[in-house]
Each structure stands twice: as C-alpha cells, then as structure tokens.
C-alpha cells in the first residue's frame, strides 16, 4: 500500500480476526516503502494509566508509542531496559519481557535523553465524544465562518452609514428643524389648498363656459369660499333659457340657486 490512509482503512478488518475492536483506535508507522508497523490502542486504557500515574490529562501534550520510539535502539541491541521495564525485539516487534523472567540486561536506556519522533497522538478526556482532530477542524471552520460574518457585518455598517448620510442630506435639503410629522402636516395642508384651488378653477371654468354655449353676457362674477355668484344677461331672458342653463348646471353641480329677473339671470353655485 502506498499511503498511511489506505493502511488505516484496512487495519480494523485485520485486527478484528484476533481481538474485539470496539473502542479501539489504530495507528500505522511506515518503516520503508511497503512496510508498516501497525497497532491498535484503547484511549480509555491510556487515560486510566495517566490517572493512575497521578497526572492530569491537560498536563500531557502528546503520547508516544515505544514501538516507534525504541525501534531503532532495539533493532540493534535486541534487548533493553527502560525504567526497570525489560524490552525485547522479536520479529520486528517490541515486546515486554514479563517481570518474573529474570534476564540480565546490561543495556539500560535513560528515557530522559531520548529524542522523540514526530509520531504521536494526543488524547483528551472528551475523546470518546469527539476527537481532538475533529474538534480542531470544527474550531477552524467556526473561526473562518466568524471572520466571513465579521467582513459582512463591516459591509452592513457601511450600508447603514450610507443610508444615514442620505437621510441627513435629504433633511438638510428640506428643513433641518422640521420633523416628519410636521412635514406630513405641511404636505396635507398644501394638498388640501391645491385640491380646493382645482375645484374652484373647474367651477369657474364651467360657469364661464355658459357664455360660449348660450351667448350670454356676464354682468358680474364673484367667487369666495367655494361659492360662485354670477349675473348674466341675454337678448331674450325667458324660462326656456333658464331651463337650458339649469340643465347645464345640474349635469355637474347639485347645490345651486337660479333666479330670473327682468333683464338678467342670477345664479349661485357651491362646491
């Protein structure tokens, strides 16, 4: 196999022929091109051992395997004693010699002077829920997303500032001292005046149009408070003319008074 990942993938199936692999994790160390040392370990057992040794898990940065760390020394010496533990090298695998077997081993390794390899694992008390690697990856993702959101927040504040500047500019153009309610009130007032003026003009225009329809001459026109009073005359003032004018006014206005005098007609129309 070419890489460590492939080896790790097949390790559980290899081990399950000999041991129960539940709760076990696996490790592979490459010796040469096509040769690996592989082993299974139980994190819970390691944690218990650390506890028994009177240590806290957060005091332990990394955990190294003797199979890897002492491989080179034992490959040459075959037997070695470390911290009163006798080790032997059998078929390229380091094994612990049981304490009841008395062997005189001269080769004693001072563990303090060992230069450790880069092959190690780290475990924590929460390893059974989430392993360190996954936890770190998740943390990195969350921090990256947080940075992206921070960039977006910054851009949002720029947009808010832009809108606030536009609002301030509009207020400066109109009148700084006027509140929205005051502006609404002014608009309402102006609209009311404007609509009234439109109605007045329509009424005047309608009344003045009588001249072109019935050929009358206006004697006077008065307009005040949405009320128009007109007096007009014709060569022939009679009820027929009065009726024609009445019909004309009725088409558009309901409030009116029409009176025929001797030589003129007076009319009062209200909006």
């Amino acid at each position, binding site marked *: 196999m070419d890489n460590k990942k492939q080896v790790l993938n097949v390790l559980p199936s290899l081990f399950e022929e000999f041991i129960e692999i539940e709760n076990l994790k696996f490790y592979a160390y490459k010796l040469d091109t096509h040769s690996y040392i592989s082993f299974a370990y139980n994190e819970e057992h390691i944690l218990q051992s650390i506890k028994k040794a009177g240590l806290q898990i*957060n*005091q*332990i*940065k990394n955990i190294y395997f003797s199979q890897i760390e002492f491989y080179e020394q034992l490959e040459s010496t075959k037997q070695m004693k470390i911290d009163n533990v006798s080790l032997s090298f059998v078929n390229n695998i380091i094994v612990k010699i049981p304490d009841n077997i008395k062997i005189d081993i001269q080769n004693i390794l001072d563990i303090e002077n060992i230069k450790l390899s880069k092959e190690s694992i*780290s475990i*924590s*008390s*929460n390893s059974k*829920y*989430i392993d*360190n690697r996954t*936890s*770190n990856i*998740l*943390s990195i993702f*969350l*921090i990256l*997303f*947080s940075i992206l*959101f*921070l960039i*977006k*927040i910054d851009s*949002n*504040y720029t*947009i*808010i500032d832009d*809108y*606030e500047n*536009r*609002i301030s500019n*509009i*207020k400066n*153009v*109109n009148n700084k001292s006027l509140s*929205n309610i005051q*502006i*609404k009130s*002014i*608009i309402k007032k*102006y*609209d009311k*005046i*404007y609509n009234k*003026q439109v109605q*007045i*003009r329509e009424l*005047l*225009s309608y009344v*003045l149009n009588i001249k072109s329809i019935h050929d009358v001459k*206006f*004697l*006077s*026109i*008065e*307009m*005040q408070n949405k009320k128009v009073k007109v007096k007009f005359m014709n060569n022939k003032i009679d009820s027929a003319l009065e009726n024609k004018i009445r019909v004309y006014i009725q088409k558009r206005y309901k409030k009116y008074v029409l009176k025929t005098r001797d030589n003129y007609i007076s009319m009062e129309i209200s909006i």
Partner: protein
Amino acid sequence: MKKINSLTILLISIIIFLIIVNLYKYTNSNIQNVKSEYLEIQKLSLGFTTSKKSLYTQRKAEQQLRNITRQLNIKNLSIVKKSKKLIVKVKKMSFYEQDKFLNKVLNEKFIILKLKIEKNELEIEIGIK
C-alpha cells in the same frame, strides 16, 4: 506548559460564532429599518417639494402677476399686501382684457381666495403660503 483542551477551544469558537451571527442578524435588521426610514423620508421629501411647487410663494405670485400684466399690456394694476394675502385690483379694463387676464390667472398656480369682476373692474385676493 498547560495544554488547552481542544473541546474548550471548540466551545469558545461556538460562543464567538454565535455572538457574531447574532451581531450579523442585528446589523441586517438595522439595514431594513434604516432603509425603510430612508424610503419614507425620500417619499416625504418628494411630496414636500411637489406640494411646495404646486402653489406660488408671495414673491413668485407678485412676479407672475407683473409678468401677466406686462404681457397683456395692462396699466392700471395695483397690488396691496395684507397679512397673508395679496389684493390685486385692475381698473378700467375692457371685457376682452378681463377675459384674457382671468384666463391667465386661472392657469397659474395662484391661491385664489376671492374673485370679483364687475363692469370694468376686477379684484382678486391671492393667498400667500
């Protein structure tokens, strides 16, 4: 050196992430608020400007009246300012001139409070904003 638990780091990351997501939501809702405020003010401003322009101010009304009299060559015009109105009187005016003058006035943005046409005299009261 004491090792920092990776789960602690993860928890801190989650808390930071949640705070930032909430801040993001808050700024988003602020954008919506400030945007609707801007649209309302813009609409009000447009309405305010349109309303202001729909009717003449005192200065503009006087200027426009003089323009009309100049165009129609009317001589006997008097404009008197009285509190919030202009009283316009034109004497010795022919029927034809009255008709022309009235047409012009009605087509401008004056606030006509009162109108009186009698014989050869014309009187208009124009309101001032």
